[in-house]
């Protein structure tokens, strides 16, 4: 592994270096046209740039020249704003240059004169119009928003809400929100909110059917409250068709990344199972280290990794997990993931991490585990992975990396969200810009799964995004981790029979919603029935909207949409 990193701490250094390298690359702006071009000015003598098609100056020539410069310092970073007097046109020329330098598909952008567009309008069209195999836009992740909105901070792994995760099956009346999971040690958990329950009322308002705007506003306020201690009453109907009511207070909810882990005795041998909800937590490294030691002591012969609600997080942890599954021999001198940029920026290689790194200490916290301990390994030739459309980013990298080194991955569940892309967001003049800058590839050079990793009984030749497995919808009928739960039981069935089980009718209940989710836009609002454009109502999202795209830095944040996470 030394060919990649001198030591494990380099992984964190790389995290920082990625951004620095990329941004340095932006300023340097290679390409013969770029470096030899002399900036033309217009005839007014006011130093406003003139557009010349397909000729680009470095973005550094335009950076921080703002129509409305900020003054003072950021309250978050305490760094003085670099802004100076400029113009909207200069900001648009910065957009153009920045995108040309860093955008993954910059060659597919049609170069247009910034003078003919507004600021947001111009940036919006600085992207590819190509489609994926399924006909959806290849680039769905290109936007800008005020930096003041995206600077908000959170304690790692903590969000406002009630600790209830919903499957947003229908966003128009009659609405259907079904409980997917309840975070342990929350009021909702203690009060008995159960998986599979459907939301009927909030504070006496008919959640399912109301089209009254003031009631929708009240629902919005209750469901996405950020006011700690605010009480709301929720009425549910559970899977046995029994109604119940709970009163919950909005709280800062600490996520539980490793929610369940156990060893299951089967006729085929001992099978390890773990429900891992996030890689975005500095303490999960210790949890996984201890759990894999336990699996090793238990001498498990197969493993089911349940990533159905895992939206991603730190690649270092995902890499450690992949290493613990595959072992030293399988991963030796092989790449976990290569971060592939456009042809102006050097690729970066992420190794399989084979020791503890004490991530929490590395990012500034107290030590949680002794670093440089060899990780326990299971050396498995095959692993079962449970997925849904909420399995994203580092979860997909986990699957793809193992496939890349020859581990047989059996994918049970639904297609993953399909986000092999990422970016380093960038502020200029008070706007933060998001433009796809890289994709992740496995050891075999595969990373084109924009439509998700698809479980397939018979994967088609040449379609590497199809993964051997069973396409099955989860149904919320059983508790997570229950051996009768449809995805886990299907994995155990496959393990015993080397084939997929017949899907029972109840398992198909959720199929319609999920099928729609995979083809409808990833954002919508609850509105008057059937009128998706009928003005603001209750913000919501489909399961696909749990998707988390690969991002180098999550510097940026939009509080309105953050309300759509775990409730």
């Amino acid at each position, binding site marked *: 592994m030394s060919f990649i990193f001198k030591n494990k701490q380099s992984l*964190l250094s*790389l*995290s*920082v270096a*990625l951004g620095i390298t990329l941004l340095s690359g932006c300023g340097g702006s290679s390409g013969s046209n770029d470096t030899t071009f002399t900036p033309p000015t217009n005839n007014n003598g006011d130093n406003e740039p003139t557009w010349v098609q397909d000729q680009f100056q470095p973005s550094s020539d335009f950076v921080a020249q703002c129509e409305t410069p900020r003054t003072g310092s950021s*309250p*978050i970073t*305490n760094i003085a704003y670099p802004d100076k007097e400029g113009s909207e046109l200069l900001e648009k020329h910065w957009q153009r240059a920045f995108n040309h330098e860093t955008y993954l598909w910059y060659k597919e952008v049609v170069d247009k004169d910034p003078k003919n567009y507004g600021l947001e309008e111009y940036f919006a069209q600085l992207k590819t119009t190509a489609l994926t195999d399924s006909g959806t836009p290849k680039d*769905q*992740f290109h*936007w800008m928003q005020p930096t003041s909105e995206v*600077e*908000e*901070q*959170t*304690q*790692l792994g*903590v969000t406002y809400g009630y600790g209830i995760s919903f499957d947003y099956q229908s966003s128009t009346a009659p609405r259907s929100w079904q409980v997917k999971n309840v975070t342990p040690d929350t009021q909702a958990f203690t009060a008995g909110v159960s998986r599979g329950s459907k939301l009927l009322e909030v504070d006496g308002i008919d959640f399912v059917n109301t089209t009254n705007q003031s009631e929708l506003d009240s629902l919005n306020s209750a469901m996405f409250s*950020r006011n*700690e201690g605010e009480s709301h009453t929720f009425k549910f109907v559970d899977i046995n068709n029994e109604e119940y009511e709970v009163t919950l207070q909005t*709280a*800062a909810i*600490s996520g539980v990344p490793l929610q369940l882990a156990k060893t299951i005795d089967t006729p085929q041998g001992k099978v390890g199972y773990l429900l891992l909800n996030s890689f*975005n937590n*500095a303490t999960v490294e210790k949890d996984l280290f201890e759990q894999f030691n336990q699996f090793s002591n238990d001498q498990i012969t197969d493993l089911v990794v349940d990533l159905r609600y895992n*939206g*991603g*997080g*730190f*690649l*270092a942890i995902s890499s450690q997990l992949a290493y613990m599954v595959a072992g030293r021999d399988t991963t030796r001198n092989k790449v976990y993931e290569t971060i592939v940029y456009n042809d102006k920026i050097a690729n970066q290689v992420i190794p399989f991490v084979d020791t503890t790194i004490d*991530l*929490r200490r590395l*990012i*500034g*916290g*107290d030590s949680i585990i002794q670093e440089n301990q060899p990780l326990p390994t299971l050396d498995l030739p095959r692993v079962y992975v449970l997925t849904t459309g909420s399995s994203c*980013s580092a979860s997909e*990298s986990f699957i793809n990396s193992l496939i890349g080194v020859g581990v047989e991955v059996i994918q049970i569940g639904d297609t993953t969200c399909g*986000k092999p892309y*990422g970016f380093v967001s960038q502020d200029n003049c008070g706007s933060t810009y998001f433009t796809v800058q890289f994709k992740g590839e496995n050891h075999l050079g595969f990373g084109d799964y924009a439509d998700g990793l698809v479980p397939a009984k018979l994967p088609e030749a040449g379609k590497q995004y199809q993964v051997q497995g069973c396409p099955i919808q989860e149904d919320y009928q059983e508790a997570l981790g229950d051996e009768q739960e449809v995805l886990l039981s299907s994995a155990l069935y496959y393990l015993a029979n080397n084939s997929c089980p017949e899907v029972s009718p109840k398992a198909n209940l959720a199929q319609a919603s999920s099928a729609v989710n995979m083809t409808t*836009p*990833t*954002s*919508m609002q609850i509105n008057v029935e059937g009128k998706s454009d009928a003005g603001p109502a209750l913000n919501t999202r489909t399961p696909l*909207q*749990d998707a*988390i*795209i690969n*991002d180098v*830095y*999550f*510097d*940026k*944040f939009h*509080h309105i*949409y*953050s309300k*759509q*996470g775990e409730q």
Partner: protein
Amino acid sequence: MVIKPLILISLTVSLLSACSLRANESVAALLPENSSAARAEIVETVSKALGGKKVPIAQDVFQESSKLLLASAPVTSPAGVKVISKQAKQALVFELRKQGDNCILKRLDTEQEWLLKTKLCIEK
């Protein structure tokens, strides 16, 4: 003969200075369980330190670690897709410290300190 008392005096002075210095030094601290008022004050102080923005902070903050790690909250695209970091970076760190009877919240990157009303903190 005169030297002995001088040594004693200087030793005493040194020890007293050391004690005095020690009393002024702050040390890493924790909060006990059931300190919701202290937590509320910390939530408010952190928010003020960050320009008044609300910051989700766990119910058990500072009960197991003297450091509070903050990161940028996940951003969501206009299409509703949430973005989370793939790569770790240095967190924005606040530390709870105890100085004498006082509890202090310290932002480590800027070394700014806030004296808290609560006296509940205990030396780590």
